[in-house]
């Protein structure tokens, strides 16, 4: 019997960063050198696959022998030889390097629709996508379905915009179809910019054809012949793979004139962003494609009426498009049932922060936050206490422990004072200062403000200054009220979504963690011991062994003491860098 062996090496951005290319090359070298295929009469090949969402374990390698998959974690090139000899040739897995139950738990609790092919197929090979049923949906839509029919399926599926606002996709397409124009555009918003979010990048890198296929279906449904994929500047690999995918589509006539032999034509082009978070906002994104400053414009029209170059434009996010082929193939009902009554399907989150398993997770809408964080994420790192989870990036908010059972859908998260957003989910533990967290997000938004409207340009800056004052121990009575007033005004008066939501991280932390603000202002104390100006380091004499590690690392020469006797920190000299705290092996340094 000939054995069929496939070796899959993760080559998402995370995989590549951890040395995936070298690992893959090593495997390929071993296969050739050992003349394996002849020797053990097997059909063995190694291939790259996209991100499977568990980047903290990269490089991840699957060895699949006759459909039996074994996954290894943290693989380095020098480990390849052993895996190859023991597992590939002799059929005995290297047990100590296996990804183990954690890896399986992480994946088993998920429902993969958008990510179903990520980490499984070779993203640079269209045939690999076609082999798993790719482009059947587009072919069906283009050749067999009327635009109205497609629109109805999408409407019935309850698919809502995955970019954050959750506008029903079917309605958007319906409007796009209804408006008559000689030229219409379909745009894929791949300007994923929320800190802590990388869902769209993984899809564009790991399964670029699914996005293109979704766009083809949308083009047919809205009778549009031109499209753009706007990819942010920081995603070169996504650009490369999408570009390859487009070229392959052109060769197969899935894009271009008379696609699939029909009378329908669709041209698609990639537009690479140049580094501006605000371009994730639809009007700003379109101005950017038009070669202008990415400044949002007041919304006189819906994009579906007047968008890019004043032409009707349907704009959806990467994940939204990636869902479409599956909906067409499996039907609206199947998709709707995956989610809740008001929101169909699944949502991909990028789980990060102080959670044990960080990475991409795809879950059915309606799942609770607790399930995501504890069942999939494996709970809090280092056995610490959960404090809050931040969803929705800089436009979102922090949800406290008492609301952990909140269902994940657009409305419930909004009620909890946050938003669904594009899918960032940052877990914060007891060692996280909420004022500092709010400050971090505001720093981000403030730096990314386009500068056009007064409240966002100046207001966020003033707000940030107040937070800086509070975290550095100079907070004043009334600062909390001032923050609230500022926040509410900025929300009410800003020109675009970025400005309107800029204050959310502050307002939501003020709502749930007001006492932390008060502690900073009134007691000049940071409860989580994070804000540098408000903490002190003290050596606990009983625990200090006098090893001198702290003294050696102290950049300010603030630590005194002789060997083998307890040391002391001179508070006048201490610059509160925390080096001693990190260096002490005996946990003898107290940070309060």
């Amino acid at each position, binding site marked *: 019997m000939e054995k069929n062996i496939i070796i899959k090496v993760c080559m998402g951005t995370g995989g590549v960063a951890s040395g995936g290319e070298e690992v893959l090359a090593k495997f390929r070298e071993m296969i050739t050198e050992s003349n394996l295929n002849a020797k053990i009469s097997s059909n063995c090949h190694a291939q790259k696959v996209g991100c499977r969402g568990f980047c903290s374990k990269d490089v991840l390698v699957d060895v699949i022998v006759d459909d039996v998959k074994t996954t290894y974690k943290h693989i380095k090139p020098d480990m390849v030889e052993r895996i190859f000899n023991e597992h590939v040739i002799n059929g005995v897995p290297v047990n100590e390097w296996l990804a183990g139950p954690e890896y399986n738990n992480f994946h088993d609790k998920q429902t993969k629709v958008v990510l179903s092919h990520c980490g499984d197929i070779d993203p640079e090979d269209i045939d690999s996508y076609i082999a798993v049923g790719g482009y059947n949906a587009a072919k069906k839509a283009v050749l067999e379905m009327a635009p109205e029919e497609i629109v109805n399926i999408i409407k019935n599926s309850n698919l809502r915009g995955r970019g954050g606002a959750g506008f029903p996709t079917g309605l958007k397409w319906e409007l796009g179809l209804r408006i008559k124009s000689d030229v219409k555009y379909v745009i894929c918003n791949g300007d994923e910019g929320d800190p802590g979010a990388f869902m769209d990048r993984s899809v564009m890198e790991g399964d670029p054809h699914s996005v293109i296929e979704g766009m083809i279906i949308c083009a047919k449904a809205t009778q549009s012949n031109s499209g753009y994929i706007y990819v942010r500047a920081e995603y070169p690999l996504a650009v490369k793979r999408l570009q390859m995918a487009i070229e392959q589509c052109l060769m197969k006539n899935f894009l271009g004139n008379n696609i699939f032999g029909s009378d329908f034509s669709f041209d698609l082009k990639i537009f690479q962003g140049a580094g*501006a978070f605000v371009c994730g906002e639809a009007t700003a994104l379109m101005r950017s494609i038009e070669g202008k*400053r990415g*400044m949002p*414009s*007041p919304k*006189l029209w819906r994009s579906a009426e007047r968008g890019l170059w004043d032409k009707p434009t349907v704009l959806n996010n990467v994940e939204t498009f990636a869902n479409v082929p599956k909906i067409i193939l499996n039907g609206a009902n199947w998709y709707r049932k995956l989610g809740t009554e008001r929101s169909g399907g699944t949502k991909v989150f990028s789980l990060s922060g102080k959670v044990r398993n960080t990475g991409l997770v795809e879950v059915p809408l309606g799942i609770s936050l607790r399930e995501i964080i504890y069942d999939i994420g494996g709970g809090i790192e280092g056995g610490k206490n959960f404090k809050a989870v931040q969803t929705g990036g800089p436009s979102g908010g922090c949800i406290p422990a008492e609301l952990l059972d909140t269902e994940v859908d657009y409305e419930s998260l909004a009620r909890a004072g946050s938003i669904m957003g594009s899918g960032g989910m940052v877990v914060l533990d007891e060692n996280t200062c909420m004022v500092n967290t709010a400050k971090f997000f505001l720093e981000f938004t*403030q*730096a*990314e*403000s*386009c*500068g*056009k*409207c*007064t*409240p966002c*340009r*100046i*207001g*966020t*800056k*003033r707000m940030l*200054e107040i937070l800086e004052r509070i975290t550095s121990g100079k907070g004043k009575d009334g600062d909390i009220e001032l923050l609230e*007033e*500022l926040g509410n*005004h900025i929300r*009410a*008066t*800003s*020109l675009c979504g970025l400005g309107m939501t800029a204050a959310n991280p502050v307002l939501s932390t003020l709502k749930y963690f007001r006492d932390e603000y008060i502690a900073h202002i009134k007691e000049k104390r940071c409860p989580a011991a994070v804000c540098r100006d408000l903490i002190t380091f003290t050596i606990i004499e009983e625990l200090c062994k006098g090893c001198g590690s702290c003294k050696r690392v102290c950049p300010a020469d603030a630590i005194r003491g002789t060997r083998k006797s307890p040391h002391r920190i001179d508070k006048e000299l201490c610059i509160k860098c925390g080096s001693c705290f990190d260096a002490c092996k005996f946990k003898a340094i107290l940070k309060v």
Partner: protein
Amino acid sequence: MEKKVKLQIDGKEVIAPEGMNLLDAGHLVDVFIPNLCYLKGMRGFGACRLCLVEVEGLKSPVIACNTKVREGMVVHTQTEKVRNIRRFILDLILSIHPLDCMTCTKAGICKLQEYAYEYELKNTSFIKKKMGYPIDQINPFIRRDPEYCILCGRCVRVCKEQGTNVLDFIGRGINAEIGTAYNKSLRESGCTFCGSCVDACPVNALPEADRWRKGREWEYTKIPSVCLFCGNGCDILISVKDGGIQKINTGEKPGSTKKYICAYGRFGYDYIEDRTRITTPLKRENDTLKETTWKEALSIIAAKLKEAGNETGFISTAGITNEDALALKRFAKNVVKTKNFDTTLSLYSDIHSMKDSQSALITNSDLIILIGLNPSQWSRVLPALDASIRKRVNRGGKLLVITSADIKIEEAATLTLKGDEITILKAIVKSLIDKGLKADIQLENAVKDAVVTEDIEKAAKLVEEAQNPVIFTSPSLFDSSANLTIIKGKVIAVGFESNSRGVALIGLTTEGKSYSDMVNKGMKVLYVIGEVPLNARPSHTDFLIVQTSHFTELAEQADIVLPSTTQYETEGTIIDYLGRLKKLNRAIDPIGTSKTHRDIFVAISKIMKSPLKKPSENEINKLIKVKPKLSFNPFIRRDGFEIAPREFIESINASVLRGRRLAWLKEAVAAIAV
């Protein structure tokens, strides 16, 4: 008829045309919604957020500048909610804006000051920050101080819309600023110093460079008038205090940027008190010019004119008022009894082109056709025409340029056709006739053999699709261009002097020797009025009289020099290039003993015992009310009008350009060009 909708703003009923925004609709019933970034006529920008108002039925406030009126709308502009919002926004702006209203140049007309007062903000409630931007003040025209800038973007939009393209938004976020490419000074950024941004700026970020301590806005008497420096004859608004001109703006309401004036028109006025200004009559004595009295000067002239009779020649600039022109004509014909009078108009145009030019508005035209003309803000040849055309194009109008030269305005053109203008015009007409548009038989015959190319086809399509095409043509191509109007549109020949059309209509056009003849061959007595492009005393001229405001090279060679008033010291009317009658008003008293041209002629006529009456308003109106007659004319180019426009305009304004600031400009331009 445009559709009207009925709505309510602050309890007042408003009937507004469909498509109008709430801000403009408010104005109709004297409801003024605060705003800093709105510019009437341009799309709402939505940056300042001050114009937020509440509309019944809508959850959150909307910006009035960008919300269109709807039937039955009920709008509230002064609710507590929006007043609080405005207060908050002003508070934010004040946190990065200097609070030096007591010494600030713009006090009294600063919109921020006005709103801070209205919303009771003495100071910001935030910590005040300085951005620390450098001031650009190396030019004598505009002082750019970004510290005052509130980023309303009005200057940017004005500068861009008129096609000058010097200012733009730079950077982003709190560090966003208004600046130039590579943050260079205005001088190094291709700025023409037209000062449109000065008019647009609602605060003190872009005042005139010399404006500080030249008086408060409310101390000024504002006198509307017209600039006579070039063929555009722009409306200006002169601010006068203590008998002196303090500044000049466009002839629009303060803060409006609808009209354009160039650096000459806005800043050139400082030449009036230049040391070359002539304040008393001069007469030649032993080879030098010496001061004399009006009485003596005029009696010498009267004697000379009487003696020379029809051997006297009058040459004048066409940049004089209708009143002066008519007085001059009558003086020459009836008093001196000579038919030899002519103006510089004859150097670049025939009379028929000027007389039969039509009236039109650029703002109403959807297609502008520019034939054989090279208007340019940068060389200040018909700069307002250039700016107006670019504005129109930026608001959706189309521009067809037909030219045999490479010209800058091509960059704004929808289509440029290069080559012999007449060949192109014929081909366009042919193409239009082929498309089935109606022409007359003579025209059809004249273009029978024209060759229609693809580009001509495109041009013809533009004309075909246009509702109100307006043709601006060089006078030498007037007849050929006017033939197009048999099919469609209006035609205007553009002269280079402010009253080119008026002079032609009044009839200050020769019945005897032409300007060139008189200059080339000389006259027994040659009487020169205003500044003409003539530096050497024509030979065979026994006696030369120069009547002008400033000492020129020619004046130095004169036998008698009479001081005349400048455009700010006289009143009268002109006909501008678009055919509009415009009124000059006297803003300041004449300097020294200078007199208006017509007063001088009347005075001489009295001495000559043939008293001249000053022309009345009625007489002028009758003369200029001529209906243009247009019919088919052969496609020809008139010869003899080949002047270099820039050099011509500079020479008739030589003394203006010697003024302190414009002299700097000339040097700066030369330095950059090198």
